[in-house]
């Protein structure tokens, strides 16, 4: 049964994991996302769906627990925030290399280092280019509402199992801490399928299952890499998701922004349009795979693009790669936990693109 | 008889935790009714029994008490 609730982003994400039929959550507290594990510990899903919730002794341990449970063919997730996600990079690379499905969420805070606990988007590169070693990709979903935080948990598990690939929900302290109306999807059953690739105790008459990312021979390792690359091309073909605002009309300018920052940019767009500026907004919902083509198409019809981010300019590189010289691309950002105000963005639009 | 002592409390820094109060062997200290700028009821002297033992000051987490004792 669907339910309409007013919920905090972090708690909604936690609730969504129970409803998505997750088998286990392993995590370690860190602001601004500790509500996820607190909510789960309070809800005791073990008694409802049998979902296991465990506080690990560190993020390194948590993500390796995720690896172990995911390799059993279970729906597993962990959540953390920037420094904790950095600690997980080795294991994330292992998970990608061993082709295990799981959902991760990074409720990003300002960095680098211990930084601030305030919202930021400065882990974009880490998530979409590769924070860990080797050629791998995380399917990266960027929710802009509490509703999407919920929906992307479900979608995340679907994609994770469809491609046997880790999925990152790249969100931030704004989405994690804010309350909004949210429609909760119905309780999903937990997985009963016994996957061929999963360790579950050797099946009589079949080969024993080995989960590994090691290939002593380069020839073998290259094959693994080729298989991964082929999979990524599939993901790029099938899974690009984005929303446009006013982009079907005649527009002179385009803004590109993701997550919470896209909502602030939307407000800036409203202010700009009220002033007669013909501007649209493009919001990628998947950061990997990135909607290069869709942006490239829009680039042909505008005089310039403003990328707005809560960082020092990361996604702007992908926007430039998409645009490939077709129109000028400017950037406006605030960082270190600072949140740009709608009128600042409007101002940047006017000075960097229109005036500039 | 014990020597006479005195305490000086930096009431603006006091957080009203009462840890000093329960540590005083002479019940010299108590919380004020008033609050300081940070909104805390602060510690005050309520009698002159102080022997300068410094117990209150030693346990004060915020190091706001200075203790004097006559020589």
């Amino acid at each position, binding site marked *: 049964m669907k339910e309409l609730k007013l919920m905090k982003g972090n708690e909604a994400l936690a609730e969504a994991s129970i409803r998505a039929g997750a088998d286990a959550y392993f995590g*370690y*507290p*860190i*602001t601004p996302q*500790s509500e996820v*594990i*607190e909510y789960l*510990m*309070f809800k*005791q899903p073990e008694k409802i769906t049998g979902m296991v919730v*465990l*506080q690990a*002794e*560190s*993020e*390194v341990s948590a993500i390796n627990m995720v690896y172990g449970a995911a390799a059993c063919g279970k729906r597993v997730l962990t959540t953390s925030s920037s*420094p904790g996600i950095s600690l997980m990079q080795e294991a994330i690379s292992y998970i990608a290399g061993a082709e295990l499905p799981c959902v991760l969420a990074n409720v990003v805070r300002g960095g680098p*280092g*211990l930084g601030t606990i305030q919202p930021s988007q400065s882990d974009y590169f880490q998530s979409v280019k590769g924070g860990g070693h080797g050629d791998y990709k995380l399917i990266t979903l960027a929710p802009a509402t509490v509703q999407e935080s919920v929906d992307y948990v479900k979608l995340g598990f679907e994609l994770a199992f469809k491609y046997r690939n880790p999925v990152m929900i790249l969100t931030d302290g704004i989405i994690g801490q804010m309350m909004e109306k949210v429609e909760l999807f119905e309780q999903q059953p937990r997985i009963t399928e016994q996957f061929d690739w999963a360790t579950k105790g050797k099946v009589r008459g079949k080969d024993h299952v080995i989960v590994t990312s090691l290939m002593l021979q380069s020839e073998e390792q290259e094959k693994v890499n080729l298989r991964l690359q082929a999979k990524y091309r599939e993901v790029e073909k099938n899974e690009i998701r984005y929303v446009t605002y006013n982009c079907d009309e005649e527009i002179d300018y385009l803004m590109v922004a993701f997550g919470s920052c896209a909502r602030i940019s939307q407000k800036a767009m409203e202010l700009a349009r009220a002033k007669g500026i013909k501007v649209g907004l493009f919001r990628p919902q998947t950061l990997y795979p990135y909607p290069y083509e869709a942006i490239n198409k829009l680039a042909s019809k505008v005089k310039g693009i403003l990328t707005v981010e809560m960082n020092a300019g990361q996604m702007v590189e992908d926007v430039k790669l998409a645009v490939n010289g077709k129109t000028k691309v400017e950037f406006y950002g605030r960082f270190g936990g600072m949140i740009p105000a709608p009128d600042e963005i409007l101002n940047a639009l006017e000075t960097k693109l229109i005036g500039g | 008889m014990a020597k*006479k*002592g*005195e305490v*000086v409390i930096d009431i603006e*820094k006091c*957080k*009203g*935790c*009462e*840890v000093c*109060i*329960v*540590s005083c062997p002479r019940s010299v200290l108590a919380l004020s009714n008033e609050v300081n700028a940070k909104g*805390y009821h602060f510690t005050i002297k309520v009698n002159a029994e102080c022997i*300068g*033992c*410094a*117990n*209150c*000051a*030693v*346990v*004060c*987490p*915020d*190091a*706001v*008490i*200075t*203790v*004097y*004792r*006559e*020589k």
Partner: protein
Amino acid sequence: MSEIIKPENIVYQKTKVLTDKVMHYCPGCGHGTAHKMLAEAIDELDIQYETIGVAPVGCSVLAYYYFDLDMQEAAHGRATAVATGIKRVMPEKYVFTYQGDGDLAAIGTGETIHCCNRGENILIVFINNGIYGMTGGQMAPTTLSGMKSSTSPFGRDTKTMGNPLKITELVAQLAGTYYVTRQSVHTPANARKAKRALKKALEYQKLNKGTCFVEIVSNCPSNWKMTPVESNKWMEENMFPFYPLGDIKVPQQ
């Protein structure tokens, strides 16, 4: 004003090894007292200019504002590795870490054990308040059985959540530790004793004796959801039986 109040009569005042910054700790939090005892020990040994401290990630993350010492902020759990780096390149300085139970005994377990096992010639000050204070009261490795926290809202269930960890007893087993003791700072007598322990540890460091480890069992009124005075009482009644005060490893003469 009483005539007793004159400089020559001062018997106790804030040590100069603490700065004048107002500490951000909650009222009655033992972190403040522990800071003070450590600062006084450093003051009394007159080594303020030869000491380098390492702050953890935890409520005492800002300790570097309060100690008037050169200090470094370490990543969560890594203070002993950071201190190792410092001590190895500046062996003539006094080096200490100041760490909470989450920092030292959860995420930092490996660093703690190996620093002690190498016998790094430093002082480790370990504040055990049985909780993750800074992040809002989650369960720590040292949280008592049955004790409530925001991630054990119905009490720690050792069956699924693990057992309270006596890491101090563990490090005492290691060849590299020289002096290991468990103290508290919640009463004047205990605070004074803790200071003596800290001083002793720093003196041993001078003599190149290896790792000294001083646990301070402490309170967290905010996350235990008690007044400071209640929290100290609760600590005596509940923490001390499981974490008994006293020396655990003392130098053999």
